């Protein structure tokens, strides 16, 4: 991927952990303060370590349950690793909330975790809709939400850490790959809420200089009646289809599109691909051969090479079996809990502002490599990947950005002519990390 971000650099490396001000285990000095009050080991002690509760909010039932389970598995794996590691001075206890994919239930679940369960940090939410429902509750309780998924951007909340890709890290590089190779006539299909609407709006903006949107259709969340959409695609013959459907809607669409491709070779994946910012290994496992050959962007693919990911995958295999493939939704939640725990350790307390100061102040190792969180927008730097769905349930990685891209959640530096974002040479970037990192 020809996206060069070298004008400014992401903070690199971990700060040496030796000088942590964290008190020794069992010293009784460890203070984790709840909303408005200090408390010591309020939730008990295990292995001589005080227990700290964190709230994990994923819908493991309902229309996008498969992604919710993926997020939950990732969060719980990180939690287990932290609890097995004696270098962490606390034990994390997960308090789980399952809103069942019903948007209106998210505020009540968040409220319960923050007020009744004493959590100050919540990890979770898959859809933007659910995140936006939880934010007022988080703000009211001075909590912090660790949101682990790719989303459409146009938000930068003081009480949220955004660990998934934002548009300059997903749809922009995806289109930089697709438009020159397949053509500029695109068909947009999405689930009927903010993710699809806004990602498709950005797509229209990206196509505006020389492309053409030949159709745009939406399905309600969970809807699977895709015949009209596929019929329209057959009639209008776009060069590619941008798919922002989620859950069963997406699976139904991919199935129907594959059937079209079997009848008319002009609609096979290699000729007219379905491209997506949210097609993951989870979908490949559920859809099977229908997804093969289509394109997706993500900040993590299971097939990623490198020692870090090899070690990570070995640990995944140890917990879930060798057949388990994980996706960016898994690693997003895993990374959220890891960064939260490492920041807790370094801050020496669970106060969200103190934790945030650490989290936005240095780089963190993740299965996808080193990332950092921009202190201004609370969004992560990411190295976008482009993959083609393979028959083995994973993605063949076609391209990878040379270096992590600074997050640009408001697409301030989008250069339509170049089809990529990045501050022009000599200009101060919007998100230059202010804290230096020492390796």
């Amino acid at each position, binding site marked *: 991927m020809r996206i060069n971000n070298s004008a400014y650099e992401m903070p690199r490396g971990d700060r040496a952990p030796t000088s942590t001000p964290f008190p020794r285990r069992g010293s009784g000095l460890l203070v984790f303060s709840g909303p408005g009050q200090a408390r010591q080991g309020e939730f008990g002690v295990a292995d001589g370590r005080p227990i700290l509760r964190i709230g994990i909010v994923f819908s493991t039932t309902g229309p996008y349950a498969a992604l919710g389970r993926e997020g939950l598995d990732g969060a719980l794996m990180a939690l287990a690793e932290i609890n097995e590691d004696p270098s962490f001075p606390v034990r994390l206890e997960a308090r789980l909330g399952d809103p069942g994919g019903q948007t209106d239930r998210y505020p009540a679940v968040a409220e319960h975790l923050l007020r009744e369960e004493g959590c100050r940090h919540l990890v979770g939410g898959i859809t933007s809709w659910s995140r936006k429902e939880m934010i007022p509750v988080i*703000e009211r309780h001075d909590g912090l939400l660790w949101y682990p998924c790719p989303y459409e951007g146009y938000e*930068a909340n*003081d*009480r949220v850490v955004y660990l998934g890709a934002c548009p300059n890290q997903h749809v922009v590089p995806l289109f930089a790959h697709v438009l020159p190779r397949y053509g500029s006539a695109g068909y947009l299909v999405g689930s009927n809420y903010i993710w699809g609407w806004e990602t498709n709006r950005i797509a229209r*903006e990206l196509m505006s200089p020389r492309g053409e949107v030949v159709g745009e259709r939406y399905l309600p969340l969970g809807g699977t009646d895709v015949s009209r959409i596929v019929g329209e695609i057959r009639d209008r013959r776009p060069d590619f289809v941008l798919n922002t459907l989620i859950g069963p809607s997406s699976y139904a669409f991919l199935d129907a599109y594959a059937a079209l491709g079997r009848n008319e070779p002009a609609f096979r994946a290699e000729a007219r691909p379905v491209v997506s910012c949210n097609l993951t290994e989870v979908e490949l496992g559920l859809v099977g051969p229908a997804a093969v050959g289509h394109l997706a962007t993500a900040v993590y693919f299971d097939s990623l090479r490198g020692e870090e990911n090899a070690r990570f995958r070995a640990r995944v295999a140890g917990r879930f079996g060798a057949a388990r493939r994980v996706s960016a939704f898994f690693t997003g939640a895993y990374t959220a809990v890891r960064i939260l725990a490492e920041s807790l350790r370094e801050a020496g307390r669970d106060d969200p502002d103190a934790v945030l100061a650490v989290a936005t102040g240095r780089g963190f190792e993740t299965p996808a490599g080193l990332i950092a969180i921009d202190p*201004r*927008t609370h969004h992560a730097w990411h190295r976008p990947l482009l993959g083609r769905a393979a028959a083995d349930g994973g993605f063949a990685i076609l391209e990878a950005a040379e270096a992590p891209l600074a997050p640009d959640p*408001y697409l*301030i530096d989008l250069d339509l002519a170049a089809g990529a974002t990045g501050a022009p040479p000599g200009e101060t970037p*919007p998100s230059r990390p202010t804290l230096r990192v020492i390796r």
Partner: protein
Amino acid sequence: MTVTPPPARPSLRQWRAVVLHRPHASAEAVVRQLERLGLTVRQVWPELAAEDRGADVVFFDADMAFDGMFPWEAGSAPMPLVALIGSEAPGRVEWALRHGSNAHLLKPISSAGVYSALLIAAHAFDQSRLLRETIDDLRDRLRHRPTVARAMLRLMRTEGLDEVAAMRRLRSIAQDRRITVEAAAAELASEGDADAAGR
């Protein structure tokens, strides 16, 4: 007149914003969000400087605002204004409206609201400027109606045209010379006056 479609996403990187507010958490939140949006931001209090006339948007404290804080007449701000409102007392809202607020944000201000207030204010400002220009133009044409009538009468008389043909003729004269119908009418009417005077 219908509302014009919203403009394309503005490129905020080039925008300069002024936050006219005493040091306060709400003002800091606005500055922080504007900086996240890529704008160059200056926070000032209690008055705008002359250089701030060139700003692209001004967010001002509607609670403490006073006459004379803007270096222009009430209602003629050269840029979009966003009122930051804490006390929703009618007098304060009235003050903000009188000075031409295009959008508002309620205090306390946190992370949300600044982006949409900015877009709404910019659109409302453009819209009202467009309306004002349209109204000025219509008023001008209204003022010239007697002149147009005289010009048409002259064409009807001198060229033996009926009303419809005279109007068409006047339009084509204006079009050929790339001037407005009113300007063409004024010339014709004054030629007519000169003829009458010379006769």
